[in-house]
């Protein structure tokens, strides 16, 4: 390393000289002095390589150049290492050890003890008797009431309308400053199964309260990256009236399961395959991505999908038993940022 650095400095000296000479003769003497000072510094630096670090050079341009050289060196070393490994691998042929799987966050995820085992009887029993059992046994048909917070802006209103086309049997109502606790008994009386409130802040929808109506759980989500239909690239025509299929991905833990059921119960139980529409709720690292596509099977190995409707991402903030009651409700789960964000490999859903 010493030699390298020395060489570099030597390379630089002639460069510096050239620039100085270009500037003119007036500064000649001053420049020479500077160079001498630098020469001294560089000598001192090369004399103590172990403690040398790039950050000790005061001159910014020099420091920058040195840093770039350092990076290049490191990169070269890395490439050499890779090449060596590759050669070894080829040399061994079949006996080579299997390729190492790169670590991803999903790989490294801390095992959550509430992960649902598919054969778990307790879970199955719970799910057979919880608030959604009526729906999953085919007794009730979903009927969704979509509303907003007070005085919604145009974007939110349009988003609600689009949501209503995506979710079959959904009605949008304008909220005229009504209290949710008063709306809920009326909804129950009219056989609604879901109440969805899109909360708005600064002209943009940013939250969603999803309340399952006959005293079901209430979930409060944070909504982000909302894209309306016209903002989508290469989108298809408007969604038809057919009931879409539902895909729920990656809901592994108990909490995830209940949220999954909550979201699934928004849609009617028997999808109409004629419509070829699919609504996807994909959970990745506690973010639930919603997408609405139209699919077509080109052959048995390939399917083409075309995104239609609005898209948004949800992040669960709290899950409360019973219908909406923020003060006195019993919370099943609340996002406690301080505890939960501490570990990057731990996810709740």
């Amino acid at each position, binding site marked *: 390393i010493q030699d390298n650095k020395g060489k570099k400095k030597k390379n630089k000296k002639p460069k510096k000289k050239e620039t100085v000479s270009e500037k003119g003769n007036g500064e000649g003497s001053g420049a020479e002095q500077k160079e001498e000072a630098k020469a001294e510094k560089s000598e001192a630096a090369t004399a103590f390589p172990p403690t040398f670090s790039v950050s000790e050079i005061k001159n910014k341009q020099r420091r920058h150049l040195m840093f770039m050289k350092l990076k290049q060196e490191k990169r070269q070393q890395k490439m050499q290492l890779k090449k060596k490994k590759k050669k070894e691998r080829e040399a061994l042929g079949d006996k080579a050890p299997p390729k190492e799987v790169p670590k991803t966050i999903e790989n490294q995820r801390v095992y959550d003890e509430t992960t649902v085992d598919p054969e778990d009887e307790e879970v199955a029993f719970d799910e057979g008797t919880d608030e959604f059992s009526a729906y*999953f046994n085919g007794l009730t048909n979903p009927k969704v009431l979509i509303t907003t917070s007070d005085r919604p802006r145009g974007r939110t209103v349009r988003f609600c309308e689009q949501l209503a086309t995506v979710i079959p049997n959904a009605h949008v109502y304008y909220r005229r400053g009504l209290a949710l606790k008063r709306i809920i008994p009326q909804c129950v009386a009219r056989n609604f199964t879901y109440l969805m409130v899109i909360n708005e802040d600064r002209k943009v929808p940013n939250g969603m309260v999803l309340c399952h109506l006959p005293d079901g759980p209430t979930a409060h989500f944070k909504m982000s990256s909302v894209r309306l239909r016209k903002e989508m690239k290469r989108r298809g025509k408007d969604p038809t009236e057919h009931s879409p*299929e539902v895909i729920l991905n990656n*809901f592994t833990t108990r909490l995830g399961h209940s949220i999954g059921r909550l979201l699934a119960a928004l849609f009617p139980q028997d999808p109409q395959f004629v419509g070829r529409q*699919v609504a996807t709720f994909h959970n990745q*690292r506690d973010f639930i991505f919603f997408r609405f*596509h139209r699919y077509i099977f080109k052959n048995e190995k390939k399917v083409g*999908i075309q995104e239609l409707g609005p898209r948004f991402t949800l992040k669960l903030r709290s899950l409360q038993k019973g219908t909406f009651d923020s003060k006195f409700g019993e919370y099943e789960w609340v996002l406690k940022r301080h505890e939960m*964000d501490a570990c990057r490999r731990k996810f709740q859903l």
Partner: protein
Amino acid sequence: MFVISSLCFLQVIWDIIGNQQFCSFKVKTKSQSFCRNEYNLTGLCNRSSCPLANSQYATIREEKGQCFLYMKVIERAAFPSKMWEKVKLSKNYEKALEQIDENLIYWPRFIRHKCKQRFTKITQYLIRMRKLVLKRQRKLVPLSRKVEQREKRKEEKALIAAQLDNAIEKELLERLKQGTYGDIYNFPVHAFDKALEQQDEESESESEEEEEEEDEEEEEEDVGKREFVAEEEVEESDLSDFEDMNKLRTSSDEEEEDEEESSEEEEEEEEEMEVEMKASKSKGKSPANGSVVRKKRAYVEIEYEQETEPTSKSRTTS
């Protein structure tokens, strides 16, 4: 002399603070000047509204929802701590107005009128405050910029990691394989043949043990279900498969071939639905389809089972 001087001094005060020199309560704007004195009746900076430049003055002020009438007379000008007389007004609007009239009985009309106006305004805003408290309050939750940025970045990374399109396509193809779509799509025949060719090269020895079991099962199934799709295609494929079998198969298998020939069956879907509670496990909208009829070839079915097991496992864990 005394009277003139008393009036004069007020005029002098006004001359000083009103127009020429400085008044600390005065707020000047382009069109108008205001008075920030708490005891000011109208809020404007006028000769008649200035509490400093008027020896006889009255105001209405409210404290915690209660209105008071404050009066200042010249007799108490020498006792600053006792200068303002405070009278509590009743909560009844009319009675309070009468009280004001009664207290300010011989006072100048301007002050009386302005007092009543001010009192009216105050009661109106108190009523409104009480009404608002009963309505829904909007709670402002402070956002921490750092946290929001962090979440945003996490979301982006999660989106990249999710590979949504691939995941959706995979899921749809799996559902197609599982047979949730039933009769709608006619692909499966070709896929099945392709699968056959692939599996032909793989292990054939294991097939022998399981063949017997499957023969029995097959016959039971035959009795239960017999569903036909297009005849011709299947016959052709049957023939082609027979050819393949002849090439690769040993003699022991030919017996089974004969059995299979005898009972023709055609397949609809590729895979058989195993015993799973589809509704609860997959949580998809897949109606539990009737189990698909297998093809008669034993070896094919066996490898078929091998194929299904890993896929089913992957489905339940995902």
